[in-house]
């Protein structure tokens, strides 16, 4: 049986800044993937050592897009790339979001947790409301707006939208499915105010391999430790704990 490609090379079409330390990377090529799945990316050899996992932000027939926050060595190297540079990627990896026959859906994101939501919103055929929380200024809202019905913003500093936590303006009763991605404290707080069975959480974790071998990215669940990279990154809220 033919084996899958490992890392493949792709050309960068653009790598533009869309907010404070937030960049949108568009690569050329026909890539597969579902909303919620991710790719491992690198444009280095052995320094740093590991690739970095990024959610699929969008896919078209001839492009794939990633949205990333510059936080460390790897993402600092990524932000200096330009059109025409090459990058290596492995994927699609992970399980992705589940879809159903929904009427009203909420997307809840915290900070860079908005990354997987564009591709998700484009695939949903129902009313979609976006709740996006930021530290100070917002980003990527302009790109999201054509694909969602209502947008509710919040920021810790009050720079945009409601001053405070995005969950303070969120009403769980209005929705029959909720998709969320963001920092664990936000997801945990959402867990506490939401109907567990309708809430899908996309988790972030430190990862080495991205394919299920290293057991570095595990999360505590009702069925024991599960791997965020292959058993997730999307979990039903009722199955996952954040206190482990």
């Amino acid at each position, binding site marked *: 049986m033919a*084996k*899958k490609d*490992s*890392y493949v090379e792709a050309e960068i079409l653009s790598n533009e800044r869309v907010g404070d330390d937030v960049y949108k990377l568009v690569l050329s090529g026909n890539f597969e993937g579902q909303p919620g799945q991710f790719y491992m990316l690198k444009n280095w050899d*052995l*320094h*740093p*050592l*590991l*690739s970095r996992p990024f959610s699929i932000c969008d896919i078209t027939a001839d492009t794939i897009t990633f949205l990333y926050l510059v936080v460390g060595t790897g993402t600092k190297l990524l932000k200096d790339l330009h059109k025409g540079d090459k990058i290596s990627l*492995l994927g699609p990896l992970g399980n992705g979001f589940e879809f159903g026959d929904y009427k009203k859906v909420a997307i809840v994101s915290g900070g860079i947790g908005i990354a997987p939501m564009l591709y998700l919103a484009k695939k949903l055929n129902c009313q979609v409301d976006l709740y996006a929380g930021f530290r100070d200024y917002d980003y990527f809202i302009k790109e999201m707006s054509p694909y969602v019905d209502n947008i509710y913003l919040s920021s810790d500093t009050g720079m945009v939208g409601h001053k405070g936590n995005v969950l303070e303006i969120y009403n769980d009763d209005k929705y029959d499915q909720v998709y969320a991605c963001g920092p664990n404290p936000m997801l945990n707080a959402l867990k506490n105010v939401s109907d567990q069975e309708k809430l899908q959480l996309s988790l972030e974790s*430190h*990862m*080495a*391999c991205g*394919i*299920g*071998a*290293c*057991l*570095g*990215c*595990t999360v*505590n669940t009702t069925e*024991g*430790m599960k791997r965020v990279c*292959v058993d997730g990154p999307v979990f039903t809220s009722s199955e996952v704990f954040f206190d*482990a």
Partner: protein
Amino acid sequence: MLKTDLCGVSLKNPVIAASGTFGFGREFEPYLDLNALGGISTKGLTYHSKQGNTGQRIHETAAGIMNSIGLQNPSVKSFIENDLPFMKNFESEIIVNLGGNNIDDYVNGALLLEDTDINIIELNISCPNVKEGGMAFGIKCESAFYVVSEIKKVSSKKIMVKLSPNADDLVRVATECERAGADALSLVNTFNALAIDIKRRKAVFDNITAGLSGPCIKPIALRMVRDVYKSVSIPVVGMGGIMNAADAIEFIMAGSTAIQVGTANFINPKVMIEIIQGMEEFMENEGIKNLDEIKGII
């Protein structure tokens, strides 16, 4: 050309997937032909299943990775029922990595493996990430001698002991393992190390320390492999930051009969195939017909 004999077990080539970096092979099967490998050392197994450690489990360092997985595994019994049948679909030698909290765990695990047709147990007395057992057996000569002796009493399998670079006196631990009846030695496991999150003013890992692997440990691992090779008569399997064929050849020249690839699997799922091909090319180019020609020449 790369065929090698490891304590009476024939390997088609000397390249073995290191324990804890390759699961039971399933995750890598889509990417590479598992038949092509010399061997696969399983995820470390214990008599009772283990959940592994809490908190962050992986942290990247300069040219290395620290891990604190804590031997998360489904138990020896579950492995025999659920994973061994899968692994037996392939020709690569299955090496079962066996850990334990105490001597009874090791012995009971080895007894369960008696009923299987695997040839080699890799006795893990060097895991730095479990609070009880693990490395505690591998850093002192007396306890290393004791655990190997007890396993040899109950097991008919070849016993390869995985040594810790954190041992008080690595060469003496190695010679004591040989005296206790070990058939081979593998080294090195990860280095006990520390990383600190300065903003949180806390250690990165819940267990404070964790195991360091990757290219940063290679020169030290090579020196340790050579030291041990010069001191024992049983085969030595070298590992520690092997990223490519040249690294693998270095370990052969330092005295390794076979080598294990660990961290590199996380970075390139096909790396072991590339290492095998690269070793063949090197030997052809250098006119080397057999690995014994270069083994331990340093």
